[in-house]
């Protein structure tokens, strides 16, 4: 395991923190770490800050992420990585679509010209909407407490897609699916970062697989074209035990 001292913990939303630590390692947007909380578990977390002072942004969903957001400056953080295929960044104007904690992995892509569709269940869960330039963001909430009431796809539909050179999407798989269905036959190129159960992070345990490809090594980013041919995308996945289940909203 790699071990680093936490230089800063910033609370950035309800149950959500960004943990910073210096780590002299080249990482690219879209890559992730397997972060180990001794006495809890090891979970995949995207790298939200890819400069020399690295950062990860965690929302607490369960035992391990809960423990992780309790970490303090000066504590140690244990992890392995970086893992995964990064986004293939295309020059030009970016459309960034993030659902829930999915925005964490998209943050390194945000630049002054990027436009964001940031969605969440409720307004206090909206992540990194403030990182886009003035007027460059559409917010979407399930409950309508901020921005458009609806799902991420509704935010996307409200935009003129041909203004953008590439679309980058991350969030729950059903959200990704709804967006893929919408853009499938449009000319905008798109890349999607998926989340599935991950145990090994290195392409051997098969828990994260989709249509024979491992999210942890061949993904988590996939192009529109790659996803379009996949049977499992948006339909079924394996649980921790390896049992096949229908994909539902989290």
């Amino acid at each position, binding site marked *: *395991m790699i*071990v680093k001292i936490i230089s800063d913990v910033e609370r950035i939303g309800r149950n959500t923190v960004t943990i910073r630590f210096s780590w002299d390692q080249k990482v690219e947007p879209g890559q992730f770490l*397997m972060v*180990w909380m*001794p*006495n*809890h*578990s*090891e*979970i995949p977390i995207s790298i939200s800050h890819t400069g020399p002072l690295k950062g990860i942004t965690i929302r607490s969903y369960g035992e391990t992420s809960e423990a992780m957001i309790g970490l303090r400056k000066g504590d*140690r953080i*244990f992890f*392995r990585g970086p893992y995964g295929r990064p986004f293939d960044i295309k020059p030009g104007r970016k459309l960034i679509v993030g659902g829930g904690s999915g925005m964490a992995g998209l943050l390194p892509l945000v630049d002054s010209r990027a436009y964001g569709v940031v969605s969440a269940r409720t307004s206090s869960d909206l992540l990194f909407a403030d990182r886009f330039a003035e007027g460059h963001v559409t917010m979407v909430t399930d409950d309508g407490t901020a921005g458009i009431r609806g799902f991420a796809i509704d935010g996307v539909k409200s935009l003129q897609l041909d203004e953008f050179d590439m679309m980058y999407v991350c969030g729950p798989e059903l959200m990704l699916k709804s967006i893929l269905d919408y853009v499938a036959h449009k000319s905008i190129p798109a890349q999607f970062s998926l989340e599935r159960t991950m*145990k*090994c*992070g*290195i*392409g*051997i*345990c*098969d*828990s994260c*697989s*989709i*249509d*024979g*490809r*491992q999210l942890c090594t061949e993904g988590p980013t996939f192009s529109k074209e790659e996803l379009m041919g996949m*049977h*499992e995308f948006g339909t079924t996945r*394996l*649980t*921790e*035990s*390896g*049992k*096949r289940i229908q994909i539902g909203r989290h």
Partner: protein
Amino acid sequence: MVHTDTTVAGIRLSNPMMLASGILDENGYTMLEILKKGAAAVVTKSIGTSERTGYKPPVVVPIQGGLLNAIGLANPGIKNFRGEMEIALRGNKPVVGSIFGATADEFLQLALDMEEYGATAVELNLSCPHVAGYGTEVGSDPQLVEDIVTTLKSKLKIPVFAKLSPNVTNIVDIANAAHKADALVLINTVRAMSIDIHARKAVLTNRYGGLSGPAIKNVGVRYVYEVRKETGKEIIGVGGIENTNDLVEYVMAGASAVQIGTALYTQGKDIFSRIEANLEKFMEAEGFNRISEMIGVAVE
């Protein structure tokens, strides 16, 4: 003309390489992909009677010379596995169903289900080194091993492979106990542990795990050689194979075929086709026409 196809326990294989149990074989689509990439057969991850989530991660730790794992026999339960078998069998190549249980009866039920699902053979995991009550605890008891193998052989039509543990004092005793199996699979992982000195704690949640990869290659070769020499049984070699020379080393030690696991991580899925191409070149250069001519030539 060089032929890289071979036969083990009467099963025809287009080359001597199978995917090892537990690596990229819980999802039917992944198995299908591995078959497309050139594996002659796949062995499923070990399946038990009921669903288990296994241990909490970390369940795999990359270490020098290989991997350490304690997945904890996570599996969906045999009934939930039918669908994956169906998908994998679309590859039109052998799919071996690996199963684990605590008693002969449990093994029998699992094996009958696998047979019904269309498995080409069953592989008995008598050797998982890190779950109490299963694996090595079963596989180091010669009487129990003999019971299980005998029971299965009397009821099944498909061949039975017995996968043995290297974590025993005398492998030949166990191999003899399993003599009714159609082939022996050697070896499962070697019991090991990794401690994180900064966390001051074992990394694997289960603390103990199984070592695989190059670190155990010469251990595997030794078991294959010894068991081949002492029992003459058909053997499938596994442990640390990551290139053609490793494969040939196992075959010369007495293996009729091999399985590959950890190298999927270090070498990628193209390993099967890459090794097959190099194997042809090796056989050509060394004057071997068929795999069978190489099996056990180093045994003396």
